[in-house]
């Protein structure tokens, strides 16, 4: 099993979670599945890193949470983005794109 979550820096994981929740609120399992789907299987984040990240983001005021019934008719905790969360996602994305462009330039020009 490719447990590549170990190579994910904390900040990047946060950004991925924020992005996944940009469309609609999800519960923990849903977020983990969505990240796996959207990355075409490159990233499989294990719950050991996910759940602490949820709590951290919630404490930082970027996520809201509420209890709802999920698909299997059981209670589940759904996370959603706050306004601050959306703002953070925007700024993080911009910063990420800037860095990626710079790295790409360096890699291209190296002979």
């Amino acid at each position, binding site marked *: 099993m490719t447990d590549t979550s170990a190579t994910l820096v904390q900040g990047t994981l946060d950004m991925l979670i924020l992005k996944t929740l940009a469309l609609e609120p999800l519960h923990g399992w849903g977020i983990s599945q969505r990240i796996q789907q959207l990355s075409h299987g490159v990233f499989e984040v294990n719950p050991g890193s996910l759940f602490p*990240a949820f709590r951290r983001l919630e404490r930082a005021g970027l996520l809201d949470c509420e209890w709802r019934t999920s698909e299997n008719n059981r209670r589940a905790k759904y996370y959603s983005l706050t306004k601050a969360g959306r703002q953070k996602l925007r700024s993080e994305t911009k910063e990420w794109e800037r860095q990626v462009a710079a790295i790409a330039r360096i890699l291209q020009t190296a002979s």
Partner: protein
Amino acid sequence: MPIWKNLFTGLRGLFRKRKVEQELDEELRDFLNKSIAENMRSGMTREEAHRASRLEMGGVEAVKENVRSAGWETHLETLWSDLRFGARLLRFNPVFAGAAILSLALGIGANTAIFQLLDAVRLRTLPVRNPQELVSVRIDQRHGMSGRSRGRYSELTYAMWEQIRGQQRGLSGIFAFSPTEFNVSPSGEIHNVQALWVSGEFFETLGVEPALGRLLAPADDKPSCASSGIVISNSFWQHEYGGDRTVVGRSLNINRRPFQIIGVTPPEFYGVEMGRYFDIAAPLCAEPVVDGAEDAMLPRRDSWWLVAMGRLNPGWTTERASAQLRAISPGLFEATLPPDFNPAQAKRYLAYRLGAFPADTGVSDLRADYESPLWLMLGLAALVLIIASANLANLLLARASAREKEMGMRMAVGASRWRLIRQLLAESLLLAGIGAFLGALLARSLSQVLVASLSTQSNPLFVDLGTDWRVLGFTISLAFLTCILFGLAPALRATNVTPSLVLKESGRGTTDGRSRFGLRRILVVSQIALSLTLLVGALLFSRSLGKLATVDAGFQRDGILAADIDFTALNLPLDQRISFARELLDRVRAIPGVDSAAITRILPLSGNGEAHDIVFGVSGPPQEESAVAVFHRVSPAFFRTLRTPVIAGRDFDEHDVAGSPLVAIVNESFARKFIKKGNPVGTLLRVRRMSTIFGPYQIVGLVKDTKYADLRETAQEIMYTPVAQLDRPDADAQILIRSNAPLPVLISSVKSVANGANPNMDVSFVVFHQMIEEGLLRDRLMARLSGFFGILAILLAVIGLYGVISYMVARRRNEIGIRMSLGAGRRSIIALVLRESFWLLSIGLTVGIVLALAVSSAAASLLFGLKAHDAETLITATVILAVIALAASYIPALRASKLDPLEALRHE
């Protein structure tokens, strides 16, 4: 706002823990179920799906742990549980806990008590509005002054004050005051209370509001004092009137003159002097009325008795105000020059320059006397605390070796080293915290005892020892500091273990021995060094006190009572005063049990004095260089009463009266410096007071040198003249009485003598040797405190040494057993052990001597009769400490020599 949300949810995590845990459990379980369902959908069996999901999760508990540590409240919880664990440990080791907490409480308590005093004396600002705006106005660098001075601060004369008030520009409000004492008893024996002469602007410039009635205003301080109103302090009001609200308007006697109480100050206001308080405040204009025409300070330009303080104008700095004052100085001093100054005095007076100085902490003679001793004491107390912490560190290090297995076990099940260190530090923090708390309580009583021991009847002190934020912060920082000091090294050492090694059966530990023992050795050496320093300090101060207390004052101090009989109220004309005083003296001499009695204007060693220029020869102008001597005005039998030997010539007698040739007696130093002959008897000289030259005086006697104003002074040139030949006799008779009669009997006899002569006189008494002892208070305090610290330090260091030597013996039991079985006798085993302690001692003492030399240099100015690098003291201290330490190490050495070699060999 995220910070509130964080706080809220964190608090929820603390207080509704179960619910939050339940929710987390539910959430993770739901995740697991969904994961299992997914796995089953992709074809695994139920068991396979379970297993796969659990593997992926990696352990529900571990995940929960990670989630928990993402919130701040868990760290609080772990700290709390660490503390509780530490408390349990302490409960199971009550002796250790008790010893540790006690030494910490003593150390922290002593430090806090001294700091509290320092804070009150030096650091705390006055409890008035905006104290940082206050400055004092006085002469900058006044070297020497002429005229009369009275009171604790004789900075300005009234004439100068009036000029300053009119001409200064830098201060929005300025006031003057003078501390004094008032006799409030209507008649008979004096009852003195602390008082302040204040100018009309005093209260309003300081921004003080009355608690009752009103306070003095500028209108109350007009020349020739129409209103005669006074203000009393809150404490005086409670004390004397029981807080009676009808006190406003009542009459109060000051020196037998009635004044009216117009108001009461609030409870927190004690004046502008740190360490002092006041009972009554009266306007400056009333001073001539109270002190009488002869003694009044206000009307005379040569009388120095006032201090001036004020508030800076907005936008003005102290420097700017100072510059303005300097600029107006020449004109000001010219306008206020006392008319009877001689040319030399006038020249010095006109060169004075005024300046402004920061006064946010008020003025204080207390500060001048006690500030450096207190800082020194704080340093010594800090050393004691370090020694106590070293002891604790040693103890903890010993326990660290015992807990190796525990640490190894915990690391094996997954605790990080940092986590273990945190727990050990929490235990130390618990110790330090309890010690600091108890120390703070101790400090309150300690500092009160300190102040009480410094306050005397004649010089009462009042220090508001409130616990302000500075003191609290000091105590808390001490707690943290000591925790780090004694807790960190053992914590680091204890967790420096490899689990696999310590968990083996024959766990003797890995680094047991060399390096850990080395640290304990260093600790003990530093303890020895520090206690030697403290011991040297204690010896220095004790010896200094001893020298001061027994210094040859030139007279016999015991058995003397000074009775001051003031007959100003009788309004006797000048020519009758001498005979009246003489009659009082004769009556006192007639009291049974009185050996001898004499009148003196100035009480020796009281700090009062009189100094004038000596003019040689019977005629001609004064010489260029001034010859100055101090003066005593005495009656016959003065020297006999004090038991000062008359070396040549004679004492004054009945023939030396007004109208007879002027006579004088001088002391050895006077003769040595000014007469330069063997026998000064017969020499003629004159005395210049201000611009008048009196004389010629003929010297008729030579007496032994005596101390004049202070025990610490070097020999002064003293000239004695008869009170009977004074051109302005005093309206009081200060009678020195030598008697073996019990004091109460003597005092009542003198009172009845005075009463019999005339019931309208004021009588006050001073027990001579008591007065001298009060002057030695500061030195006695230093000797006591440093002695206490010295003993404490030695105790702690010796305990530390004993511990280390015992440990060394236990560690080398095997070796000792081998030696004994190979034939080593008891003696050589003892020598073996003592050699170790000898080494530690030598290094410790050497370092200690160097440290002691450094510290004692700092104390040099406080010592009397001793140089700071006094070899005798150093050697004595070294020997004492060495002997005690060797004796302490002898016990484990003896025990080592009594070991059964077989058993020692068997011990691994």
